[in-house]
């Protein structure tokens, strides 16, 4: 009896305390590695960009309008910051209402089979890699836009409103407008899926209560559904904006890549990710490399702000259990 007990004890040391100790240590180490990666990423970008940030000052770098890696070695991020904000902001403006409409239609109007078809399509489209959209943009969208939109407007402006020419820019097909259109196409599925999630989380009782008051279908949506889902929709929109800001390949392939201001409506431009893609592999000067890293650091900070903002919106305005928290 005694022997048996001691044997059980000795073989099951893993089961008594050691196993849990080891398991906890391993799991916490793996978890901590993600913390290290994220923190490390911020530090590395800051550190590598340090040369440029020291040379021009953080705000000097942000507001500097000259980006000249060849002659003056003068680096300012403003053209790319401007390009990113304009393309992403406009793309969001273009896509937000149609995308929310898709969410509403799929959640509230479409019969079940159609709703799941739309959902699957949206998911499928969200999964298409950025470079694939990019190649479509280069060989299909850009030439088409040039022929049917940019050229006619440009030719009209040439004869009747020559003052507009510098604002319109050269209609080569690759430029700010093309990039904005592709960006808005790319974030639509994202916004639509997140809005639909928010709309579906509205309790059935809310809908029925407004129905019972004699509301039509649209009035139910206006009165009960959208107010309840607003924080989710808003947070989804902010996250989509973050997605647009960080979108790299398709934009780099379509924006025309011009690193000096002024950008024009049809003409070439650049964004923060696109300039990194275009110049990083060719950069030889250490100040040039450091400036690109510094742009990466700025991008990190913007993405961080956007994500924190979305999380804050959800926490601040979310409605749970009938209480506004």
């Amino acid at each position, binding site marked *: 009896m005694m022997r048996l007990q001691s044997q059980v004890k000795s073989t099951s040391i893993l089961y008594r305390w050691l196993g849990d100790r080891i398991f906890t240590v391993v799991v916490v180490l793996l978890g901590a590695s993600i913390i290290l990666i994220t923190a490390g990423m911020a530090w590395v970008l800051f550190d590598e960009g340090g040369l440029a940030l020291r040379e021009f000052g953080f705000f000097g770098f942000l507001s500097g309008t000259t980006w000249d890696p060849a002659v003056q070695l003068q680096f300012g991020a403003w053209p790319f910051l401007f390009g990113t904000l304009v393309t992403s902001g406009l793309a969001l403006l273009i896509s937000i209402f149609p995308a929310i409409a898709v969410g509403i239609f799929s959640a509230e109007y479409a019969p079940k089979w159609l709703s799941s078809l739309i959902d699957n399509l949206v998911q499928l489209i969200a999964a298409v890699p950025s470079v694939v959209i990019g190649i479509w943009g280069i060989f299909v969208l850009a030439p088409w836009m040039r022929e049917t939109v940019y050229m006619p407007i440009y030719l009209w402006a040439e004869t009747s409103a020559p003052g507009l020419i510098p604002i319109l820019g050269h209609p080569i097909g690759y430029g700010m407008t093309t990039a904005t259109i592709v960006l808005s196409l790319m974030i639509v599925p994202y916004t639509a899926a997140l809005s639909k999630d928010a709309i579906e989380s509205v309790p059935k009782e809310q809908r029925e209560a407004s*129905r*019972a*008051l*004699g509301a039509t279908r649209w009035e139910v949506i206006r009165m009960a559904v959208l*107010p309840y889902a607003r924080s989710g929709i808003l947070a989804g929109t902010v996250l989509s904006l973050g997605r647009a800001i960080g979108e790299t390949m398709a934009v780099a392939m379509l924006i025309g890549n011009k690193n000096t201001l002024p950008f024009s409506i049809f003409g070439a431009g650049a964004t923060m990710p696109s300039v990194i893609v275009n110049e990083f592999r060719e950069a030889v000067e250490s100040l040039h490399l450091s400036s690109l890293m510094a742009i990466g650091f700025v991008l990190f900070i913007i993405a961080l702000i956007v994500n924190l903002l979305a999380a804050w919106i959800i926490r601040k305005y979310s409605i749970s259990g*009938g209480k506004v928290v």
Partner: protein
Amino acid sequence: MDYKSIKKFTMKILNSLKTLTTGNKKLPQTASGLALATHPQSGTDAASHIEIGAGSNAHSSVGSAAKPARMETRGLTVMYGKATGVHNISIPIHTRKVTALIGPSGCGKTTFLRALNRMHDLTRIARVTGEVLLDGKNIYDSDINPVLIRRRIGMVFQKPTPFPTMSIFDNVVAGLKLVGIRNRSILNEACEKALRQAALFDEVKDRLGDAAVSLSGGQQQRLSIARALAVEPEVLLMDEPTSSLDPQATNRIEELIHSLKKEVTIVIITHNMQQAARVSDYTAFFYMGKLVEMGKTKSLFTNPRQKKTEEYITGRFG
């Protein structure tokens, strides 16, 4: 202000609004939902209210002079796909009385209740056959608009359902705003009246602008009742309105039901036999999707005709 001057005042507003929007003074009906106690049609008999469909906005008032609609069901059957929810129910809903629906869970009483104001229209698989007659007219007829039906037959749910982003005031008048009433004094008046009817006014009169979700559970439920009453329904359907409330709040709602039946016909589902006995005038007992028996509450509880009813009310199952 006495009764007459209020009546005059409302009539004036009503008429001016009507001419503003329709440009046609001859329209016989008033704006739906506007009916205050001084509805211009109050006093006319119920027969003039039959034209509920066909674009007419008329609905009768619950004012003391008006007579609420007569309601009954004939052979009402609700199917969920192949499964039957309730089968062939024909009962009268007595005017300005409280009718309680009792029965074990899953017996079809909620299904039946929701068929009374066409809430099943929302679930695609539910199919309703048979008739629900409101003043002799079947509400399932193709020329009837369910939106109007739901204004005449209001509903209160198990859980309180305040709209969380709206204030107390906006919650109460939500149904009135739907039909485009923006006049502040009309809304104020209607809000106060509905809150008084729901016995909530004194508790919230100083904070009508507060968020509705800041109220307690019992207050939220009375707010839901006030919201349903604000559009002046003739019939109020209540689906276990006290099931999520504590005994004290339950008590208040029961008192409320008692005073409301002077003006509104009430159909209430309850799991609680004592509650049915306390608040209702008539009781219908459902079992397995069928009506077992219906009668005056007193006689049903003291002298049930069916064995099943007796077993249920004495607590042998359910």
